[in-house]
């Protein structure tokens, strides 16, 4: 008997696949088993094949595998779609009495259990409970005590009334009995339960929970797959803490509202996916240049354009790293697992406020739709720290006024971070603009001030590089000659792949990187390895490019950014200085 069981329910979108799968996953989780779920779905609401898959084990499970042990097939197509994963001994539960399922042919070597799902559901009180009958049947196959379903049925149907819950419990039991009585087969599966009580959540929910824990009070967004769950999770919950979720008219509005809220002093966030990031990019520069703390979450899906909205990809890395005209200081943080979605969100808010910059929180579809079990202590709320950075109150504001009593919201301090006065603070009134501005926030095109402000904003990044730990997570054999690097949701699959590789005689060192910018310096690790492989879900290797770039040291730079083009004599001097090492910095006009 394998250690992990792989179960799925599949049918047409609209068949209640998701909620049925979730009931089963929750039951397993509460019975002390680890769960990892995944979804196959198409971008449509009704019709079209869809499936909810559950992998479960007593040990932690981090990824999906190519094996299906029990399949509830609500349509014939479900069997075809999963043929590659079914194997000898796989159990297929289907309703042979349904007209559309009468011709189902159970492939050789597999066990077909025809269970009259609809009829038994009607016996229990309504055909609508057919899926729950199937769940009961699956429990019998897996020797999973049926009582475990009860609590999740309560949770799912509780607000519909006691009678509905009881009917569902009955439906499950009818399914179980049917298999017990009609099939005297000794199935290969026996699901062990433990005393652990896990929580089960997906990446989007973890991000929403992280945001609330971190004190986020304002969320504005525009629905888009696969980011909508973040908004749905926060709706109604943020309000309990005096905050608000606002559905804006589009992403342009969403990010601008969040910007406004952040300027008013709220911890604010917006979440979207690729097409929405494109729209938000216009305002992204404004957020950065006005030095407004804002968390912008990109839950990536397949692009470009509307691409494949319900499919996985990690194709927006370049966009989040480089998107926007001009040069924009930013942080890019990318959680590598569902639980990290929580913790990295908390960090993102702190970076945003400590450094007064926009922070891209980059997640992906695989993390967003995957539900995974965790011991609740993984989300220990006492560990959550909130650092609001250099906020000045009425008493401190004085020390940031210039000689004429004006608040210097963009004061070019040594660490690049300026004081922040929330509106309402006496004597703190100041303006801020997307135009280049001076330390008071007033528009300027003066070369010296331009240099000062560009450098000031850049300096925050340097400060953050020094002050924060941009570390990585490491797995496998730290001495191995082969180094694999990945980012985002690949961590889970890669961790498990290490085991397979070891069986096949390959020792591998695996580094999973949650920080894209700033990021850990991996030169030493790369130097120490013979083969370096970067794993990512995209065609061009965007992260590989970045990593390669980090270990190159061939190019010297001459830069100019005061708003004036190069002059020939000046350029000659600069190049000469670069060659002789006299002044290897950028072309600067000294600020007076």
């Amino acid at each position, binding site marked *: 008997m394998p250690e992990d069981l792989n179960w799925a329910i599949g049918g047409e979108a609209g068949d209640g696949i998701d909620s049925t799968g979730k009931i089963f996953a929750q039951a397993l989780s509460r019975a002390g088993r680890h769960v990892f779920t995944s979804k196959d779905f198409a971008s449509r609401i009704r019709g079209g094949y869809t499936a909810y898959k559950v992998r479960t084990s007593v040990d932690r499970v981090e990824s999906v595998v190519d094996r299906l042990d029990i399949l509830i097939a609500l349509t014939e197509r479900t069997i075809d779609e999963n043929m590659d994963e079914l194997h000898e001994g796989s159990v297929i539960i289907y309703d042979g009495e349904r007209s559309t399922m009468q011709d189902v042919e159970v492939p050789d070597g597999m066990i077909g259990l025809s269970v009259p799902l609809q009829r038994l559901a009607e016996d229990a009180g309504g055909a609508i409970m057919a899926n729950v009958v199937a769940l009961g049947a699956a429990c019998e196959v897996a020797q999973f005590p049926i009582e475990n379903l009860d609590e999740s049925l309560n949770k799912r149907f509780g607000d519909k009334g006691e009678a509905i819950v009881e009917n569902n419990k009955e439906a499950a039991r009818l399914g179980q009995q049917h298999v017990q009585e009609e099939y005297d087969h000794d199935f290969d599966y026996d699901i062990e339960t433990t005393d652990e009580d896990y929580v089960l959540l997906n990446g989007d929910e973890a991000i929403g929970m992280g945001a609330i824990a971190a004190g986020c009070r*304002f969320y504005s967004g525009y629905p888009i797959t696969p980011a909508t769950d973040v908004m749905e999770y926060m709706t109604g919950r943020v*309000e309990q803490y005096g905050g608000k979720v606002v559905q804006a008219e589009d992403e342009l509005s969403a990010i601008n509202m969040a*910007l406004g809220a952040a300027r*008013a002093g709220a*911890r604010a966030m917006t979440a979207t996916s690729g097409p929405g990031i494109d729209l938000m990019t216009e*305002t992204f520069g404004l957020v950065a240049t006005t030095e407004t703390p804002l968390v912008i979450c990109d839950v990536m899906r397949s692009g470009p354009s509307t691409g494949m909205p319900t499919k996985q990809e990690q194709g927006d890395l370049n966009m989040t790293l480089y998107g926007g005209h001009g040069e924009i200081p930013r942080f890019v943080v990318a959680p590598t697992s569902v639980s990290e979605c929580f913790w990295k969100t908390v960090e993102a808010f702190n970076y945003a406020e400590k450094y007064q910059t926009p922070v891209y929180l980059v997640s992906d579809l695989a993390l967003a739709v995957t539900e995974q079990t965790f011991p609740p202590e993984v989300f220990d709320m006492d560990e959550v720290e*909130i650092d609001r950075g250099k906020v000045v109150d009425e008493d401190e504001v004085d020390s940031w006024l210039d000689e004429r009593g004006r608040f210097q919201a963009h004061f070019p301090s040594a660490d690049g971070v300026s004081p922040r006065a929330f509106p*309402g603070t006496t004597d703190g009134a100041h303006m801020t603009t997307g135009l280049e501005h001076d330390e008071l926030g007033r528009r300027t095109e003066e070369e010296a001030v331009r240099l000062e402000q560009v450098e000031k904003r850049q300096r925050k990044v340097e400060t953050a590089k020094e002050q924060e730990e941009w570390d990585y997570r490491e797995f496998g054999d730290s001495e191995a000659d082969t180094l694999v690097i990945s980012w985002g949701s690949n961590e889970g699959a890669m961790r498990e792949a290490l085991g397979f590789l070891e069986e096949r005689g390959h020792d591998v060192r695996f580094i999973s990187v949650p920080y894209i910018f700033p990021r850990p310096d991996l030169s030493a690790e790369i130097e120490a390895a013979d083969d370096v492989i970067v794993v990512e879900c995209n065609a061009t290797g965007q992260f590989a490019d970045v990593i390669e770039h980090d270990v190159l040291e061939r190019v010297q730079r001459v830069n100019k950014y005061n708003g004036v083009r190069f002059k020939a004599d000046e350029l000659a001097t600069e190049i000469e200085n670069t060659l002789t090492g006299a002044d290897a910095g950028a072309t600067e006009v000294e600020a007076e």
Partner: protein
Amino acid sequence: MSSDVRFTDFKSDKQPTWCPGCGDFGTMNGMMKALAETGNDPDNTFVVAGIGCSGKIGTYMHSYALHGVHGRALPVGIGVKLANPNLEVMVAGGDGDGYSIGAGHFVHAVRRNVDMSYVVMDNRIYGLTKGQASPTSRQDFETSTTPEGPQMPPVNPLALALASGATFIAQSFSSDAQRHAEIIQKAVEHDGFGFVNTYSPCVTFNDVDTYDYFRDSIVDLDEEDHDPHDREAAKQKILEGDKEYMGVIYQDDDSVPWEKREGIDQDMSDIPDGAPEDAMDLVREFY
């Protein structure tokens, strides 16, 4: 700050770079007067500006202020107000900013009816980009990019507001200092989204919609015996579209701002040092 705030307290020490004679001077003065008259001071006021000559207003005023990107000032204002309902929020921009690139936001800001004011400095031209047609330009108004005129009817901003469910619609003229300040004051005092379309002539690029033109054609609603609470009367005046009205055209006294209906009354800048005390309940929901 104390109650003896004067309107000049809302002036910054930056000298406006508007062309001499630009209508925006008068528009801004009226905004500052209205803010002072309504008992606000720079430290509790947040002015959001769009892009255009009009959008420069945030720079010349003194308060908490943000000068954003083209067309998107309204959502910023909404965000500010929702995050701190104690602030007085005023948004300003041009006709291009508000009715072209920002038209979508305008419609939705009107619908949302958050308690703030919105002043559009309508000069029927793009000033800052040196004289192209704007959404309120006349059909036959010839410009560098529309040599035959735009050849489509101008946007009627008042109608757009009315159709979107506005609770306060007014129009004013920047050079009638007294009336202009008065009208903006009413918009500020209104419980909800106070929208004022202000004729603010561009003396450099628009030789049709001039001071003289407005002075000659403007009709003061105060002299017309118009009841702004009569939606039907307002509708008629707005849709006739053949007169340049000045004054409050429509006001719903029963308007309740969106944030009030949503129960938003806290300053959201106030958060604890760590996760909320009951945060573990958020985790337990996932059992």
